[in-house]
């Protein structure tokens, strides 16, 4: 198994942050008010907002998936016989999701 550097851990944290930010964006979209449109537009507007809340949520889950995938890679490496000394210690903090 090839070496997994600590930068993989940092990237996993980066994906966690993206997940949070995108989750916030989905929340923002969910709260977008559509009641100000005329009756003819309010329906399509509401439908657009609901659909995009789901699209953005899915994007967020994609980010979370990347973060989890990198953590799995780190875990596999740490649990193998390949990780030694400094590698091992540097990667330990990234085994768990903090945010």
């Amino acid at each position: 198994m090839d070496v997994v550097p600590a930068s993989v851990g940092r990237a996993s944290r980066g994906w966690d942050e993206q997940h949070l930010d995108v989750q916030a964006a989905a929340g923002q979209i969910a709260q977008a008010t559509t009641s100000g449109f005329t009756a003819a537009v309010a329906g399509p507007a509401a439908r657009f907002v609901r659909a995009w809340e789901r699209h953005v949520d899915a994007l967020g889950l994609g980010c979370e998936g990347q973060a989890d995938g990198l953590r799995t890679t780190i875990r596999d490496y740490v649990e193998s016989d390949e990780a030694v000394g400094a590698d091992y210690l540097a990667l330990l903090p990234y085994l768990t999701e903090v945010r």
Partner: protein
Amino acid sequence: MVSLPSRPSAVPALDVQPASIRACGSTLLAASAQIDDVGTFVAGDARIADWTTSQGSTAYHRGIRPIGRRADAMSLALRGVAQRVDRHADEMAALVVEHDDLDDRRLHLAQQVAFLETRAGGALTPEALVALEDDCVRVGGYVAVFESDLRRWSSAVAAEEQAMNDAFGRVLHLDAVDRIYGGVADPADAALDAKPPAGASPEEVNAWWDGLTRAEQQAIIAAAPGAIGNLDGIPAGVRDQANTVALERDLADWENVEQLGLITDEERTWLENARAAHDARQEIEDRVDPITGLPIETQLYLYDPAAFDGDGAIGISAGDLDTADNVAVLTPGFGTDAESAPYQADRAATMYESTRFLDPDASNATLFWIGYDAPDNAPWDEGWDGAGVISEQMATAGGERLADAIDGLRASRDGEPAHLTAIGHSYGSTTTGHAAHDHGLPVDDLVFVGSPGVGGDTDHASDTGVDPEHVWAGANSRDPVTYLANHGWFNLETFAGAGLGDDPAEDDFGGNRFEAESTTRGPGPDFGQHSLYFDHDTESLYNISQIVNGDYDDVLTAGHNYDPWYAGVQDPELDREPTTQATR
């Protein structure tokens, strides 16, 4: 038999709220900026440069590309809808105005037709009959024009509604998003590549901005608001748009992590600063122009919640900085940081109300500027000695920032330049003094209120680079902060270890002094008097407003402080009875 014109058709109700539509667009735009960041992340920090040799790294780097492409396409699609929603708000607002006009016309015409009907029902002489027939033809013509206008308006409403629905429908599903926007270059990217580097003059920045297409400008506001929101040389209206995107995005982000219980201490501080900016702007928007009764316009001119190690930087105007005849920039002092924004917003709104009240023919804007790192400690909390050595360091650094900000205001404005006044209060006056002396301020008037000194190198008003006739000072005789300023022979430099410069209210300084006493004053010094300079109906606000409006003859001047050889510094304002001066 008289042919009466038909009554005009009813105008259908138009139940719409453009402001609410605009808020919806603003929310979608902020969300699109967030999604854009994912694309940027994939292209940048998501790439792990030192992890390249394994199957896992290959699979990872291949796997993130579609996410990046999807995010880029989604951000462009959502941005497009957001901008169309914003335009829809404008179109509907215009249609509302037309609707009200049509309604008025219908009422007027209905009354005319009713009058003709009454006449037709009575006994008519041959002459009266002819006159009636003529009037029927005339009014019938008006009704026909009205009906045509009504049909055209109704079609315009329907067309605009359909266009908005089409925009929503076009990118409702992700496959359409990928098809239409996948691989499309973001107009923001090339435009930003040409942005002048850090340190460029506001004039260069303004020239770059004016050279962009509208599509490029809108793209940058949506995708990279941080690149221009606080950039001197960018017009105030544009900075407001960009900073609004950034503020809404920040509030959503940090409130989300706060709700999840994951917020860090640093983020908590930034969130408080963002909330302060939001509340400050709301405050101004909730107040009205005293002449027109319309809500005061605001611009979020400066927004950086993490600046100065978490103290934050916020600047918001009451009024339109790009177009107002008179512009005032207010720099506060001791103890000010981003969380002070709601209080400073109140002062900016009060100054707006006062200047408009005193000169209804001129348009006005007041910008409060928390744009430098002001001393956290304040003499009323810790005393002059407890505050440590009061130094000019922060004022010197702040002065450079203030000079850049004012250069930016000048460079970013098209058309007639404003009558521009820089007002420094408290330690903000030391900062303003430094800005003027060290860098030059292209202002028409300079005002120092409650000043502890205007900087050690400024011995005379002419050292500010502004004509002494246009250098003004207001000093409340009970305000102990003003006692720190050096007073000629009796040099206070040793009092707290250092002084902050000369007293601009003293005769030797060579500027003007205006009345700034308060009817609430007691017999002795009182730190409470230090913050009354901008309250309604005070001498100080009245005089500052006259200066901002350029109405110099209406300023109530006061005798200067003077320093006779035989006694300590004398203040003729000590014994004058304070007055109330209406500012609303």
